[in-house]
């Protein structure tokens, strides 16, 4: 994990795409096997009854991946301070997701270096989750 600095970050910089494949086990383990979750996260038939065509990937799992993705991009001195996500299409377990993103704004706000990114999960070529993320980055020197 390398450190990213405000001065080296530019609007339209792109994040390296990252592939993740969510599974039903991940969906259950993420929240803990003893904790109740939506049956559609692990049961294909329950997902179909909900109309999503298979076991549903939890939105919270996708947003957590996006949080980690941006946090890793920012480096250990960066700080994710806000995420706002729209879930555009349900995702189905065992189908790969590609995480991508780009910088859409940078500014100094109340003395903090704020960088805004747009990040998405892409399934079968179509965005399924789109999020705007604000990150604080350190300055060089």
């Amino acid at each position, binding site marked *: 994990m390398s450190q990213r600095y405000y001065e080296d970050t530019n609007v339209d910089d792109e994040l390296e795409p990252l592939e993740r494949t969510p599974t039903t086990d991940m969906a259950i383990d*993420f929240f803990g096997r003893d904790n109740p979750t939506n049956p559609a996260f692990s049961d294909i038939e329950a997902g179909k009854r*909900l109309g*999503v065509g298979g076991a*549903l990937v939890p939105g919270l799992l996708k*947003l*957590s991946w996006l949080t*980690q993705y941006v946090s890793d991009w920012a480096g*250990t001195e960066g700080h994710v*301070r806000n*995420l706002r996500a729209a879930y555009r299409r349900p995702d189905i377990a065992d189908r790969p997701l590609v995480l991508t993103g780009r910088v859409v704004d940078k500014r100094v706000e109340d003395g903090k270096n704020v960088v805004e990114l747009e990040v998405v999960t892409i399934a079968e070529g179509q965005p399924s989750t789109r999020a705007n993320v604000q990150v604080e980055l350190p300055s060089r020197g």
Partner: protein
Amino acid sequence: MSEPEQSLITDAHRAMVGVKSEPVKVTISEADAHRMRDVLGDKDPRYADGAGFAPAYIIAGMGGGPRRGMPQVLPGGLLTQQEWKFVRPFKVGEELTAVSQVFDIRERMGGRYGYSVLITQGTEYFDAGGNHVASAMITITQFDPKSQRKGDE
């Protein structure tokens, strides 16, 4: 279910908007942080065992979260929007107080799910000193799966 002749949002549902829940205590657990990091494959040294901090996404598994007390108008529901705000990192072992409230209930005609009801609910988390630490807001689209448009499965 076809579109109802009148709104399914009742006065009782509307009366829930803006009412704050009873506070709930939530502890940031090392075990939860460890398990969630393992699932995501997160190697960030800031959140390693013993480092004292939990990754921001631990908010996804916190008890007392936004769905607590959410009105159920229709049987199916999908998370359609979400927002997380973090004022500072979560400390492992700290106890937070969660307070939730419904911000908005509205309905939508037509669209992928037919008649649907959108409920926005949020939770604020405070530390022992009463300082705001984080917040989570969600919008759930409730619908009747039987009325979903064909071809969308």
